[in-house]
């Protein structure tokens, strides 16, 4: 299932924009825009989403190229982690008080 928004009926496709606000940080989704191709998409993203020095790097991805998890299967998709507390450090209480652990 693709991300919502893209429509083949539009003359310019929709692009999702991700901006890295500073070195050392991940690119974060900031919004979307329309552009005829990737060359202009990344420039439009620069003009639109970094006018106030919001970023040091920009990604653009065709909205149609993004696959998302199916929301109807939401329960099933994200159920598994619940109950597996042993993945979290706070599960291990016996070491409490021991330094540098």
């Amino acid at each position, binding site marked *: 299932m693709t991300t919502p928004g893209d429509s083949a009926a539009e003359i*310019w496709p929709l692009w999702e924009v991700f901006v890295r606000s500073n070195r050392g940080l991940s690119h974060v989704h900031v919004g979307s*825009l*329309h*552009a*005829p191709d990737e*060359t*202009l998409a990344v*420039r*439009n993203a620069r*003009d*639109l989403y970094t*006018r106030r020095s919001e970023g040091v790097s920009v990604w653009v991805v065709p909205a149609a190229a993004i696959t998302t998890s199916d929301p109807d299967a939401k329960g099933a998709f994200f159920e598994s982690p619940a109950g597996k507390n042993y993945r979290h450090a706070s599960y291990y209480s016996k070491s409490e008080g021991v330094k540098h652990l």
Partner: protein
Amino acid sequence: MTDAVNKDSIEVDAHGHVAVDVTTLDAELIEGPSVATPDVAEYALWLGDDSLVLAQQLGAWISRAPELEEDVALGNVGLDLIGHARSLLHYAGTATDRTEDDLAYWRTEPDFRSLHIVEQPNGDFAHTIARQFIVSHYLFELHSRLRASADATLAAIAAKAVKEVDYHRDHSTQWVLRLAQGTDESRRRMITALSDLWPYVEEIFRDDPLIDRLEGIAVRPSSLRPAFDAAIAPVLAEAELEIPRGFVASGGGRTGKHSEHLAFLLAEMQVLTRAHPGASW
């Protein structure tokens, strides 16, 4: 003007609670320690007027661009150019104790020093792009060289401007390629625009006696021509556009002889300010 001023800006957290914090802002104008000599001031006017007139033209596009993204893009280019114009006119004004606004709003047409190419009307999007393509490539070569000027203020202005016009050059290049090779209509319009603007290219690279008096400070226009030609050639080749042949416009902007368009442009730009002499805004 101080190097940095504090201004509040609004932070909104993920839940929309708005708080005000403080950011440090860069200097608005690039200023040097010195007062411009009359010759340097004249040269700063040349360059400042080019940027100002072009910015004024681009300002008229906002809310009329072919797509919203392009409104924003042209706005950014225009804002960069206003920035260059302000720094240059400010510097020019130091010679005669005038402000950037005195120079922008209170000079009449014969005192302007802009090139004819920047005075050419916006026309359709292809004309604006052709004008941008020519002027941005010229400005990039100019500022690249002006960075090494013996005049510290001009060098500092150029050092910032060169990065910005590099982007303008790219923006117009992308559009030249698309318009030239998009549809039959866009190609026809691009060819027309290029041949309408090309006659004004020659004036850009003409040397004026002033240049002889500013050795090491100003960039000799004629010396930029080879780099300009070399930079645009591959783009025109890829776009399958030919350099138009035809007449060469007489030019004369540097000595105050202007195209018919400039008077209208100035009339609009200056109308309010001139209705209120002495007022501040």
